[in-house]
């Protein structure tokens, strides 16, 4: 249709002759009124694009092989982790100051094996079914932990009682509309208190392909990616929940993995199939935490001294900046 003009009569060897460039009136795919035809043309266009892209890739690969050693190095794709804004509080493994700090902070007695962790798990007032079950499962995951119901008691009053009964840590799971959504972790004899926002809580029965229940063995602990000073102290808080000597017979591992300020908790059972292969099977609940605030003393919302609070306006301005 309408191809009368154009280079046909020339019988030209090269039809898009440079002098007489008269292309037929092109149409863009979006201008066709008929939806079926438009769709069809669009698919065709897409296929063409894909072909071109593939051809380009092949060509590049060929060039690369042809150059051999002299080929330019492969481009590393940019990821958020690559582009992360360098945090000046990143801990250097050889830093003496940090090592000294850690030897004298509130977790020192734990790391020197002077105290055995004993943990109290409780909830906010009137917990609903899901939270209760989650507390129970959490109690099986963390050895030497006890669950007590809140019954309207003030936290400030139960803390001295806990200290008197030799508890080392207090976990309060806050609930909203029948699902747990917050976690307050407080190291008891006058230790720091961390307040987290908890999300994606999965109970044991909701996890696919799960194994049997966790046994009573002490699990190992993996802490991944806690790089800054703040991350370090939070990591130590988590480590202080578990007894120091894991029982390898149990083959259980609890993982706290920090990625972009989200801490993922998983509980697995592992088995070494060979030297280079390990299989893991998820048991136990899983949840993710995001740190909201870290307080120096025990839980005190009014008069406490805050070491770190998440201030949305200041801290959420850059997508490449993380604090843990």
């Amino acid at each position, binding site marked *: 249709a309408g191809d009368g003009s154009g280079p046909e009569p020339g019988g030209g060897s090269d039809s898009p002759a440079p002098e007489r460039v008269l292309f037929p009136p092109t149409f863009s795919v979006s201008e066709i009124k008929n939806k079926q035809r438009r769709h069809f043309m669009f698919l065709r266009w897409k296929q063409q694009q894909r072909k071109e892209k593939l051809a380009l890739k092949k060509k590049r690969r060929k060039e690369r092989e042809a150059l051999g050693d002299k080929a330019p190095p492969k481009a590393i794709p940019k*990821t*958020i*982790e690559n582009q992360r804004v360098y945090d000046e509080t990143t801990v250097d493994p050889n830093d003496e100051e940090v090592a000294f700090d850690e030897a004298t902070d509130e977790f020192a007695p734990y790391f020197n094996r002077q105290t055995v962790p004993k943990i109290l798990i409780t909830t906010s*007032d009137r917990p609903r079914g899901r939270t209760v079950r989650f507390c129970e499962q959490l109690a099986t995951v963390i050895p030497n932990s006890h669950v007590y119901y809140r019954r309207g008691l*003030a*936290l400030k009053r139960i803390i001295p009682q806990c200290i008197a009964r030799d508890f080392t840590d207090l976990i309060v799971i806050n609930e909203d509309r029948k699902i747990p959504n917050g976690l307050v972790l407080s190291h008891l004899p006058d230790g720091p208190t961390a307040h987290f*926002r908890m*999300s*994606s809580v999965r109970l044991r029965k909701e996890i696919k*392909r799960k*194994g*049997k229940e966790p046994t009573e063995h002490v699990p*190992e602990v*993996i802490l*991944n990616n806690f790089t800054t000073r703040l991350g370090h102290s939070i990591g130590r808080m988590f480590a202080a929940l578990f007894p120091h000597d894991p029982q*390898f*017979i149990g*083959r259980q*591992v609890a*993982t706290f*993995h920090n*990625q*972009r*300020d*989200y801490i*993922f908790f*998983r509980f*697995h*059972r*592992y*088995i*070494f*199939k*060979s*030297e*280079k*292969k*390990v*299989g*893991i*099977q998820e048991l136990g609940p899983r949840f*993710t935490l*995001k740190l909201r605030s870290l307080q120096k003393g025990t839980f005190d919302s009014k008069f406490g001294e805050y070491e770190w609070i998440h201030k*949305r306006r200041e801290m959420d301005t850059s997508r490449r900046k993380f604090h843990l």
Partner: protein
Amino acid sequence: VVWSMLGNRQFCSYKMTTKTQNFCRNEYNLTGLCNRSSCPLANSQYATVREEKGRCYLYMKTIERAAFPRRLWERVLLSKNYEKALEEIDENLIYWPRFIRHKCKQRFTKITQYLIRIRKLTLKRQRKLVPLRRKIERRENRREEKALIAAQLDNAIEKELLERLKKDTYGDIYNFPIHAFDKALQQQDAESESESDAEREEEEDDDEDVDKREFVEAEDSELSDFEDMDKLETSSEEEQEEEEVEKKASHSKSKGKTPLKGPARRKRPYIEIEYEEETEPSSKTKAA
């Protein structure tokens, strides 16, 4: 006059009617109901008790000031002491109709009671409701999903466990052969293999059958439940004949250590494997 106009018949803007009762919304009303005796508009001599910021005041209206709306209501601060305040009410409303006096005192009592309750509640813990911001919640959820994908948790955990195995934190529980020993053994095997391929193949087949049995099970039971391992074992024994011989090259390195490997690696007692171990030494002596 006022009452016959407003209260009973025509419109009063403070009047609220419900099915059973009429209420008066006037802030100076003593009882809250729309009655002839409790309408502040219709009575020229009226008194109420109202509280402001925790302090109670007695408001009085007399007929002499009816012409001055600004100065109509006279305010008297009542003492904080309950009994004293009651006396003050009596004092101020002396010679006033009994109804107003009585109702004033009743109202005052109720007000003090609820003030006490307020003070008690503020001492107890109060639940602070923090509103969630929808945009922020959505943003955080999205970021969490992306972080989860970026984290690649399974890989990270596996890597960490293997590293710990390498660093020997597990001690002697797992008897996996060490790398250097493997390589040396592999080299040795490669040399001797090139010499007499055929013979070795036969012998190694026996060995490798046994070895393969263990390895094949490992391949199969990657992600399945460990509880199924019993069943797997029987199936793999059939499969071992199909295994390619090429695998022997990679497995030959562990020839030396396989007798120890089986029972140490298995966490569940598999008696069958131990049988296989016993047949091995006979073939081993031939190979060595």
